[in-house]
């Protein structure tokens, strides 16, 4: 046991070891943009990640996925960079938007289709959507890319020490002067991807039902359901852009070969002010705790399964939650997996997801899904009983160390690329704003901390959804 603890400690040290020698230095620019600066003298480039909220809590209702879409379209240029006649282009984009709305409302409307084609051609003539990427490449910036990480959207790129000023200027221009080109097509691609994810998840309907039972009317419910194909109007998109890209909403991480003091000066000069409106402070909906067990069922699930969900308290730190879930179930291993397979046989498949859905700063769920080809009889009860038992006492340190070691190895593999590391840190800073940002590996939680969390959560009332073929 001691050896395992030493190994886990060594592993955590290793993970701390994967970082540059200096810890990230927080810095807030005059316009309110938050930076985490991590110079690394051994690096040869600067890796830059910009994270912004990309979850249903920040998307307008009915247009979940819009914030991600907008970060994609942001690389197609601004009014200043890419437009050949920004007044005419602006007008053409408005008409194009209107034509698309008509076409999507009634696909048989031939006039709408013709109008889309006509305005599309005009917008193409009035803009060069590659001008911004060309300018970025010349800044220089390598591989600007957009990805979703949890509830955030992250733009990453790499540059040189000499390129920081030019890249900073372009990022500010992108934020302040966004043209939102090719919005309909990019939106449809986002929808297609979300539909693909929904279709590929056999338990998605069960989890959506779980959220409907527990978090009705909240952003979590919107995040869980199938996307609405309606095209968001440009004014709604503009408002979403302002909300998610306001300096107070984003975090930039710079990691690599740069001088800290000089870079602070450069960033302060570039990120001086914003014309984006301050996001409104809308109070979140605090879900009511469940007074009793809520049950429902869905059909069309290939293997009989149950999804059991518990409301999660608002947490400041995601590490203990992740450690707890890893201890309960990690692939074919885990305390809960072993219990349920003991009770129901080795064909029983168990997964634990938390927080689900992933939302920044919102109440979500801890979800246990168990599938048993032999049938549903007693499955929900077995899950509840096993969870209750496991929450009754602290997890054995050896088991916790083993699951943490696996988790740390995954973290190490995912963070050995400094660019990926920058993106992960930026995403975490947005998703868990109260957790101190760090380039270090997640800490080894104590059995007591995991026990406290699981005892708090798993002893609450649960919602149960049964899935049948």
């Amino acid at each position, binding site marked *: 046991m001691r050896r395992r603890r030493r190994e886990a400690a060594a592993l955590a040290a290793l993970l701390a070891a994967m*970082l540059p020698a200096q810890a990230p230095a927080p810095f807030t620019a005059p316009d309110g943009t938050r930076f985490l600066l991590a110079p690394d003298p051994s690096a040869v480039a600067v890796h830059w990640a910009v994270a912004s909220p990309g979850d249903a809590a920040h998307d307008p209702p009915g247009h979940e996925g819009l914030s991600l879409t907008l970060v994609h379209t942001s690389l197609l240029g601004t009014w200043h960079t890419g437009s050949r006649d920004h007044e005419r282009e602006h007008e053409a984009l408005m008409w194009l938007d209107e034509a698309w709305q008509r076409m999507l409302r009634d696909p048989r409307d031939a006039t709408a289709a013709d109008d889309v084609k006509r305005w599309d051609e005009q917008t193409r003539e009035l803009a060069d959507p590659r001008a911004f990427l*060309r300018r970025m490449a*010349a800044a220089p910036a390598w591989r600007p890319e957009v990805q979703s990480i949890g509830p955030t959207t992250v733009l990453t790129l790499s540059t040189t020490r000499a390129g920081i000023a030019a890249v900073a200027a372009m990022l500010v221009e992108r934020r302040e002067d966004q043209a939102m080109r090719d919005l309909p097509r990019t939106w449809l691609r986002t929808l297609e991807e979300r539909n693909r994810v929904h279709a590929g998840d056999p338990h998605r309907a069960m989890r959506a039902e779980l959220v409907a039972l527990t978090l009705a009317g909240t952003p979590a419910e919107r995040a869980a359901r199938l996307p609405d194909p309606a095209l968001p109007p440009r004014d709604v998109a503009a408002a979403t852009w302002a909300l998610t890209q306001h300096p107070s909403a984003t975090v930039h991480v710079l990691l690599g070969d740069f001088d800290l003091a000089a870079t602070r000066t450069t960033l302060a000069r570039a990120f001086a002010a914003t014309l984006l409106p301050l996001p409104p402070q809308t109070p979140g909906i605090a879900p009511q705790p469940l007074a009793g067990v809520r049950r429902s069922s869905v059909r069309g699930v290939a293997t009989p399964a149950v999804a059991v969900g518990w409301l999660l308290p608002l947490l400041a730190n995601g590490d203990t939650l992740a450690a707890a879930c890893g201890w309960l179930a990690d692939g074919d291993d885990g305390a809960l997996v072993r219990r349920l397979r003991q009770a129901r046989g080795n064909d029983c498949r168990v997964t634990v997801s938390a927080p689900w859905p992933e939302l920044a700063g919102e109440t979500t769920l801890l979800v246990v899904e168990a599938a048993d080809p032999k049938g549903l009889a007693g499955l929900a009860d077995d899950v509840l009983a096993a969870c209750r038992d496991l929450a009754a006492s602290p997890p054995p340190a050896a088991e916790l160390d083993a699951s943490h070691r696996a988790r740390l190895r995954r973290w190490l593999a995912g963070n050995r690329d400094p660019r990926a590391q920058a993106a992960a840190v930026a995403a975490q800073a947005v998703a868990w704003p109260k957790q101190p940002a760090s380039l270090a590996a997640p800490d080894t939680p104590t059995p007591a901390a995991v026990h406290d969390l699981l005892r708090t959560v798993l002893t609450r009332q649960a919602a149960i959804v049964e899935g049948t073929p």
Partner: protein
Amino acid sequence: MTRRSHLAAIGLLAACAGAPTNSPATGAGNADAATAAVGRTTTRLRNGATLVVQRVPGRPQAVLQVGVAAGAVLFAPGAAELAVHVVAEAGDAANSRPSLRRRIEQLGGLLQVHVGPLTCWLDIRVAADAWPAAAKAVGEALAAAPPTRAEFERVRRDVVAARTAALTDDPAGGMARLLLLGESGGDRYVRALADRDASEVTTFLARGWRPELTTVVLAAAAEPAAALAELDAEAGASIGAWRAATPPTPMALIDRRFDSGLWWSPATAPAAAAAPCQLAVVMPLPDPAEPRAADEILALGCLTLEGVGGRLERVFADRGLGQVRWQATTVATADATALVLRTEAPGEQVATIWRALAAARASLQSVQPSRSEIDLARVRAPLLARLQLLDDGVRARRLRSDDPSMDAIDRRLAELATAGPEALREGVDRLLARPFACIAVGGAIASDVPDVHAFQPTPTAPSAPPAAATPSPSPTPAATAAAPAAPATASAAARPQPWLEQAAAAAGGAAALRRLDGWRSRAETRAEAAPALLDEQEWRRDGALTRTRTVLGESLQTKLAGDGGTERLGAVARQLDAAAIATARRELRRHPLALLAAHVRGELAFRTVTTGEAADRRLAVLETNDGGFERLRMHIDVESGLVRAVESWETMPDGSVVHLHEAWQDYRPVGVLRAPFHRLTTRDDGVQRAATAWTAWTPVFADPAK
């Protein structure tokens, strides 16, 4: 339009900067402190391995790189890659030795394997205080006995599965990496891995993984003296204590070239033919240490910034290809990195895109880059130069050579910024001399593009060895042959014999074998206590043979045609008698492909003698007395289907019986066939032994395939 450039040019830096190849090992405790460049110390371990230590105070992470100057261009296709995986993945359950990978993971670290044309590396990352344990694990892995056959086959199976999966998931990207390795298709690459025998990989390990060819690089918060003491410790299994088991033996070079041009893998399913093609443009980057690397990088920046801008975008717009959007990335081997631009395009547009790419490149010579093009490219060039060095492991591996720092590149770029556009001419010439390829996956190969390299991303038949076939008829359990059986009839040859079918399939298929009419070949034979003999042949199955054997500058030429034959040595010629002619022809007819071809044509029938284990391999032994052979046995590996040995017995004129055992190895794809490139001949149970290694073997077919 296509241009061939030897891979050594691409990996030139690695060759120049790599570990010393034949330096004698120094004595124990006699480490020389050689050059001490800024921030690093280079010494030698007592076994001759080079050690580079970079002290990085305060850095909580250690990077340990262990590499050998024995890469994919040596010995046999796939051998280098399997060898480094054996070092990393093979364990010894009998002695409770876990694999090196497992040991590193138990320390909380990561292990990656990198293969290049010239070098192979173990890339290890651990916590700062864990590097001694990691180094010890490496020392034990290097000193370990060769793995058992079963363990080797497990490693090979895992490597084949992983490579096949990677090529299936991303055939264009996978092919980009293979081009950097000098491969010509995923199909051949995976088959080569599957073909490699345990003994071949053991040979590669013995010849390639040797201390004098090894470089160890440690970047850690450790003093160089302390690191040396740990890595060269006398007690325990340190890397310095590792000794090669056999004397050094050179390995043959395989001809590996990055063939420039358009590489195309067409869609196989009719429905897929209409889907867009995946395209990947592969542009190897110059190594920063190469002379005039800055010039070439600047020229590359003039060609394209990152798939946008530059001459490329302009030419594409002019040719109506403005809608093509490129996504830039890199792909790397242990010795080289390439910039890769990726896109999708309709199949009918691929040829146009290829021509536009070539035209854009060529235009840099015909129309000098302008001042504004150079200015734009110059800002980007420092980033391009650094693309290969973004990874900690790559930077650590480069410590082994006296690389100029990036400052030299930046200085040269600054010089070029103030010089006129003419100063970039050399850079443009270098860029255009470097190999360059466009990979297309999908669609149908355009007929109007000359010299397209067709390739297959993955094997079309399972590369994993087929399950052992049930013998039919039932095998005779006797291990020794009885009196020679009556010659089998043609109808007997037609009886299903699964091992022969399997062997024919493994060799390239019955259809191709049926058309095999002979071959042209060139080989070198070495016998114990005899000089090397060069053997050039042109053989036809009707018995026509032209053979020149050269030893010590003297050539003996043999010509057989019809019933006659002559031998000539210089001005002296003699007629060969019927026995000599028959003996000469039998040697050629014993070739595995000749035997299989004769079988599929119905000219040779076999009967099953036995199946059994030999040297941890399961073999099916088939015998024939047909085709002019008194008694001939063919040993077929039941897993791979390859013919591993041919035995023959012949009665000499004086009545003595000569027994020949020919062990066939190193199967390689040659067109549609797979031919062995190595034969070990043992005569009379070891009285005489000779090893023959082919450098060229070209089949001749009776009629060209339609």
